[in-house]
């Protein structure tokens, strides 16, 4: 039999061939050379030779005795002494609550297994979740069970008791000086309970100050709104009707900075045949830039000028002469093309187009965008009131430090996360804290701030305390606890404030109810209302009214004209990290191990430089450099990232923590060292020198070769509409297959299948964490990831296409595709992986002997092997595991199961009710989490099932179709909508 390729030529790639990394593209495979598997992938664990292992094993067998071979050791069963009325052991319950991010709440549903939270999902009733959950909300589960949480109450380093703390707090709250020495250091929040507490404290102590601190809300957006409208409103773009969107360095598709609703609505407004168009100008490749139709890279200080040029061009097109005073700096040809195209699109789409601006841009650019949006939308902009209290203000922290140094402050309550680590480098908060007699810090870890304050108190996790919060659109949620505090001495941060609000006598629950009783008073029947709010996770009628606000054009133009000119030379550019944000998620192993969607970097950060800048400075990946700015310096490794603006050094924040959780400690470098208060987002005048040494990154994209075949496909919408895609027919038609036929599945049963729409996928990685949480997938650590032993069943591959300087990017979620003719099944010597009658490629852990033949034979490289006992853990680690899924041990192969535990649970429910499984009743974890609904799962035997329709969509294709594996998961080609002028 001739080889298959002779008869079935591999589909040829049209034009630009995708590439996974610069190194691979240049043909210089980095050492160690990655074969199919990375070098060392099967190396034995260090420190324990094979021989020793065998000896130990032999000893163990002899010692265990004969019946030890088959009889499990005796086990205890501990029933409840008093069973809670709702609980049936083995049946999970779901509770609605919310999680706070940057002051605003996102609704979540938490699955609780006999009182243990085991999974965080989105709340479909919540307008900012719509049923989806981002990677961070889901990973917060691990934070609850973190074994490294702070446990001890300390006073100047020595253990003390909570009663001592509250004694001090009461003494300080009994002061009579009007609160002159009292300061609160908090993060801006929209929570009604917190807001009320601040009000009460300020009413009792008029001279006290509530100091806002946030490393990410530096006040730019806030100030920009004040410039435009005279008051702090928040623009609410109508994503669902977006025909053209221009993003000025706004990463709105990231679930961290953009939320979950904007990506959902934006992508839904983008479906073929009527695609909208996304214009992005940014300094580093973000998820939004990767998704853009027209992307421009520009140094950070250049973006305000591009915004001005855009305004001037738009003024010309719309005949608004006032705008034409802007844009004095000359544009480069690429910039000019982008600006002209974007302005034309905006002008054409009118009130279905808008501009969004990232927090890092100066206030004047925010204001200018509001003005342009108002111009496009007939004079006004859709807004809501900003709910953040206290209002973000970058000058507040330096003022606090000055007060402390002046000896004014005797009591400081800190509930903001780790301000010492996050404070601007020229604000010596750490030293100042030592001068405060009673500085109290309430946090989850013994971190840099805890080491500096006089009192450190362990905080409760958000799943352990009562609270409330509001979403961006105002929708309120009562946040209910799911479990009693796992740390005995933990205190809800609000409790420290309560004493000063004169409310220490009541419990947080009572205060919360008292507050919300007022809201219910109008409709009556508080108890029923309260129960309903808790059950649904939203308080009806709390949405903020959308206002149409007119913009003060004169002050905006004046501010825009006074913007400083763009700088020269190398520029530093700070960004919040996609995984650890400003560092607060650094203690979370799931997020640390999550590959960055763009760089695919795990357990690290790096200085991002563009290929051109790297070659100019003769830098390659892993080189170490020293960056110096105004007398501060930091050493960091370099990562060459395509799509990066030239002469721009992007530094992700949130790494290089020195204290706190051992998971975060020493991972990456601390970019905060170079972040000054007058330059929180970019700075020029940096000096870069090469230093000795080489850094080894744990990058996952170079694992799992796919041998240059057409895997992730994209084309332009216009071409697809006109002639389809030449590559698709070969990837859609059934082909001959090498393997003997499977028994024909029973047509009356289910045929489970999945589709992944690359056109909808933004690469946000929520699915990766969802899969990890649902299926008990361990995090393995940097060393193991470097050996290619990461265990993620679902990975998101990222491919670049075209020009290395500004490539096209495509993200592709990939897990086991459940082949109809599965190559893995034919090679397993012990039948540990077999086909089910419903088409699932089942993995039977208890049969697996670990030959790894299946993984070798898998063309998609989606199987994962437990090289070591990754799932060992303490009692806390056992608590968050999903009891419906086996915890795999060493030597066992595993892979995506299509969440078979959910299929079986739905089957049992349906069969007990004597009915069939309903359409949409089985949702996989990845599908459930996906903010843009890119992943759809269902029964291919049901003609009306969405997945059946997607399997017939003209955009669908089967991965590596020429192999004849007939995957049950199909992908849908991604379409781009470049502008005719530039494309």
């Amino acid at each position, binding site marked *: 039999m001739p080889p298959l390729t002779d008869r079935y030529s591999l589909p040829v790639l049209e034009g630009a061939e995708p590439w996974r990394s610069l190194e691979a593209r240049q043909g210089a495979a980095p050492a160690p050379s990655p074969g199919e598997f990375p070098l060392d992938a099967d190396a034995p664990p260090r420190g324990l030779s094979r021989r020793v292992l065998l000896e130990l094993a032999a000893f163990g067998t002899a010692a265990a005795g*004969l*019946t030890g*071979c*088959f*009889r*499990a050791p*005796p*086990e*205890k*069963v*501990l*029933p*409840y*002494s*008093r*069973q809670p009325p709702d609980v*049936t*052991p*083995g*049946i999970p319950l779901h509770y609605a609550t919310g999680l706070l991010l940057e002051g605003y709440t996102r609704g979540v549903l938490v699955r609780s297994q006999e009182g243990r939270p085991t999974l965080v999902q989105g709340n479909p009733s919540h307008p900012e979740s719509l049923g989806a959950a981002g990677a961070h909300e889901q990973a917060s589960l691990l934070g609850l069970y973190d074994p490294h949480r702070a446990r001890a109450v300390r006073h100047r380093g020595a253990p003390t008791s909570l009663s001592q703390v509250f004694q001090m707090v009461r003494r300080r709250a009994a002061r009579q000086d009007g609160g002159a020495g009292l300061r609160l250091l908090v993060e801006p929040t929209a929570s009604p309970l917190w807001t009320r507490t601040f009000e009460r404290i300020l009413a009792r102590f008029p001279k006290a100050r509530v100091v806002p601190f946030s490393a990410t809300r530096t006040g730019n957006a806030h100030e920009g709104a004040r410039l435009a409208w005279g008051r702090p409103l928040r623009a609410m773009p109508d994503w669902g009707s977006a025909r053209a969107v221009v993003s000025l360095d706004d990463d709105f598709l990231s679930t961290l900075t953009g939320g979950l609703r904007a990506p959902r609505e934006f992508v839904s407004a983008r479906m073929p045949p009527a695609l909208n168009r996304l214009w992005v100008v940014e300094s580093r490749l973000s998820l939004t830039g990767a998704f853009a139709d027209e992307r421009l890279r520009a140094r950070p200080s250049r973006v305000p000028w591009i915004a001005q040029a855009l305004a001037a061009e738009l003024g010309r097109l719309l005949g608004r002469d006032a705008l034409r005073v802007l844009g004095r700096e000359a544009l480069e040809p690429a910039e000019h093309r982008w600006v002209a195209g974007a302005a034309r699109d905006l002008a054409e789409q009118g009130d279905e187009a808008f501009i969004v601006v990232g927090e890092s841009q100066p206030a004047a650019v925010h204001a200018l965008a509001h003005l342009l949006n108002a111009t496009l939308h007939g004079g006004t902009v859709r807004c809501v009131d900003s709910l953040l209290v206290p209002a973000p203000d970058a000058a507040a922290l330096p003022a606090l430090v000055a007060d402390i140094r002046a000896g004014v402050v005797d009591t400081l309550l800190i509930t903001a996360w780790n301000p010492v680590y996050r404070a601007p480098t020229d604000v010596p908060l750490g030293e100042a804290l030592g001068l405060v007699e009673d500085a109290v810090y309430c946090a989850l870890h013994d971190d840099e701030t805890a080491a500096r304050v006089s009192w450190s108190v362990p905080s409760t996790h958000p799943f352990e305390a009562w609270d409330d919060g509001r979403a961006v659109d105002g929708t309120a949620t009562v946040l209910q606890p799911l479990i009693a505090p796992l740390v005995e001495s933990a205190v809800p941060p609000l409790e420290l404030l309560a004493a000063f609000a004169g409310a220490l006598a009541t419990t947080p629950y009572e205060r919360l109810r008292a507050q919300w009783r007022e809201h219910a008073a109008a409709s009556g029947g508080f108890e029923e209302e309260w129960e309903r709010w808790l059950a649904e996770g939203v308080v009806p009628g709390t949405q903020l009214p959308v206002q149409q606000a007119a913009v003060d054009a004169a002050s905006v133009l004046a501010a825009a004209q006074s913007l400083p000119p763009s700088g020269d030379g190398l520029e530093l550019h700070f960004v919040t990290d996609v995984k650890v944000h400003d560092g607060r998620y650094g203690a979370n192993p799931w997020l640390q191990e999550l590959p960055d969607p763009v760089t695919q970097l795990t357990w690290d950060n790096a200085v991002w430089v563009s290929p051109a800048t790297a070659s100019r400075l003769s830098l390659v990946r892993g080189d170490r450099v020293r960056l110096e700015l105004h007398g501060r310096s930091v050493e960091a490794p370099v990562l060459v990232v395509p799509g990066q603006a030239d002469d721009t050094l992007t530094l992700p924040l949130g790494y290089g923590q020195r204290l706190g959780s051992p998971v975060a400690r020493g991972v990456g470098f601390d970019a905060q060292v170079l972040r000054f208060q007058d330059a929180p987002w970019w700075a020029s005048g940096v000096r870069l020198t090469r230093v000795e040494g080489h850094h080894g990154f744990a990058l996952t994209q170079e694992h799992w070769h796919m041998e240059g075949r057409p895997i992730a496909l994209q084309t332009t919408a216009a071409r697809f509409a006109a002639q389809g895609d030449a590559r698709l027919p070969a990837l859609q038609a059934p082909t001959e297959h090498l393997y003997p036929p499977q028994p024909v599945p029973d047509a009356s049963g289910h045929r489970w299948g999945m589709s992944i729409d690359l056109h909808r996928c933004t690469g946000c990685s929520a699915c990766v964490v969802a899969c990890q949480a649902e299926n008990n997938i361990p995090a393995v650590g940097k060393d193991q990831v470097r050996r290619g032993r990461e265990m993620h069943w679902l990975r998101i591959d990222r491919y670049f296409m075209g020009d290395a300087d500004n490539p096209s990017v495509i993200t592709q979620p990939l897990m086991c595709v459940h082949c109809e003719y599965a190559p893995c099944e034919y090679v397993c010597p012990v039948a540990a992986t*077999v086909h*089910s*009658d*419903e088409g*699932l490629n*089942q993995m*039977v*852990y*208890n049969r697996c002997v670990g030959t790894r033949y299946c993984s070798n034979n898998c063309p998609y490289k989606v199987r994962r092997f437990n090289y070591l006992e990754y799932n060992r853990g303490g009692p806390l680690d056992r608590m968050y595991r999903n009891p*419906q*899924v*086996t*915890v795999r041990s060493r030597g066992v192969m595993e892979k995506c*199961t299509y969440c*078979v*535990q959910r*299929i*079986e649970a739905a089957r*049992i429910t349906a*069969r*007990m009710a*004597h009915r069939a499984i309903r359409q949409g009743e089985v949702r996989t974890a990845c599908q459930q989490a996906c903010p843009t609904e890119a992943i759809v799962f269902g029964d291919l035997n049901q003609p009306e099932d969405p997945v059946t329709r997607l399997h017939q969509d003209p955009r669908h294709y089967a991965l590596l179709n020429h192999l004849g594996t007939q995957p049950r998961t199909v992908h849908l080609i991604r379409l781009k909508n470049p502008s005719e002028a530039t494309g």
Partner: protein
Amino acid sequence: MLGLMAVLPVATPVALLLLARSPLGTGAFEPVQQPVQFDHRHHAADEGIGCRYCHDGAWRGPSAGIPPTSRCMGCHAQIWNESALLAPVRQSYFEDRPIPWNRVHRLPQYVFFNHAIHVHKGVGCVSCHGRVDQMPLVEQVAPLTMGWCLECHRDPAPHLRPPEHVADMTWSPRGPARDVGLLVMRALDVSPRTECSTCHR
């Protein structure tokens, strides 16, 4: 001697396999001591308390469950409320600490068994657990091996009964068991699965 040496490599695994499936290997027919001298003969047989009174979970979820101490105290707050035998129960209730029962029926961690679906499809308690109403100390009577499960999953008819008699320890089919079972299968739409992922996930 040589003959024995030749037989040994074959005989040893065979013997071990047989041993693993014998009651010695599966742990069947060994009464398990418990921290409280709870006697099913008294409660289930003499007093006629149904299985479901304490093991309601079997009708609703995967786990039949051991009743909470509060269930014991429902009666024993009134009767035998000063019995020395019940001291651990009272202690558990008043200290709000669970009674550490010893597990009798234990499946490996990679096996996911669901009581509710079996109960709703007409598998009697007695079919797997034996005459618990005659046991002074509960013991495992079935081998609980995969072969034993599959035997019924492949041919459930002889083992089924009308769902209203599931908890009846003394029920026996009027007529041939297979005929009754086939009627039950038809009425309850019983179609057991034998795919790996039915039990292994």
